């Protein structure tokens, strides 16, 4: 398993875009990937755990997806 916590500043990334990204990924990957969303200070924290074969690019792709939703 690989795990990582991504922090998104709430001044730059809206809470809705982070939530939406988590929902979309959950719909796409189902129970294979675990997500835990938490608010901490001025950040939205997303703890992600995934099987190793999924690859570490998943975290980067997820982050880009949040940014994309935020811009849209």
């Amino acid at each position, binding site marked *: 398993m690989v795990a990582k916590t991504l922090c998104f*500043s709430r001044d730059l*990334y809206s809470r809705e875009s982070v939530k939406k990204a988590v929902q979309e990924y959950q719909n796409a990957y189902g129970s294979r990937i675990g997500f835990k969303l938490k608010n901490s200070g001025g950040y939205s924290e997303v703890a992600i755990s995934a099987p190793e074969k999924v690859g570490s690019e998943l975290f*980067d792709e997820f982050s880009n997806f949040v940014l994309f939703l935020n811009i849209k």
Partner: protein
Amino acid sequence: MKNKITAAENGIIFSLSTKIYPSEIIYKACYVFIDRMYIYLDNPKKSEIQVRLKGKRELSAKELEKLKGEFSNELLNTILRESVAKRNQKILEYIVGGAINASLEKEQPAEAKESQDDLDIEKEIAAIRKELETMGSADYDEDPLGIKTIKLVKKNKKKKK
């Protein structure tokens, strides 16, 4: 714009002042690059946005510097486009407004023609109605077209033969 190359993470980090580059401008530039690299934004200070660009494939320090240069150019490009759009907004509004007005003026004569056509049709309908009314009031025994008399003449001729 100081930058820090993080070879281990295959990325480059630099900070932008929000006084020079508003967050909207940074978002727009990010949107242009989002398919080419991974972009992380953070704001460690109030008037500063930290940008981390990470290559989708392994990149050398030179390539990372180049990416940063392209990103910076895109920022300037976006700022310029925004200011031109703001400056020309009023002109654009006038042009669009004028075009809409012109098209509305063109439509009005067509409407007038349509109403004239409607009047003509109504007149025709009224004339047909009148004709039908006169036909309806005619008595069968009156025989205005003389059909009855023609038939009687023919019958008499046959009898004589």
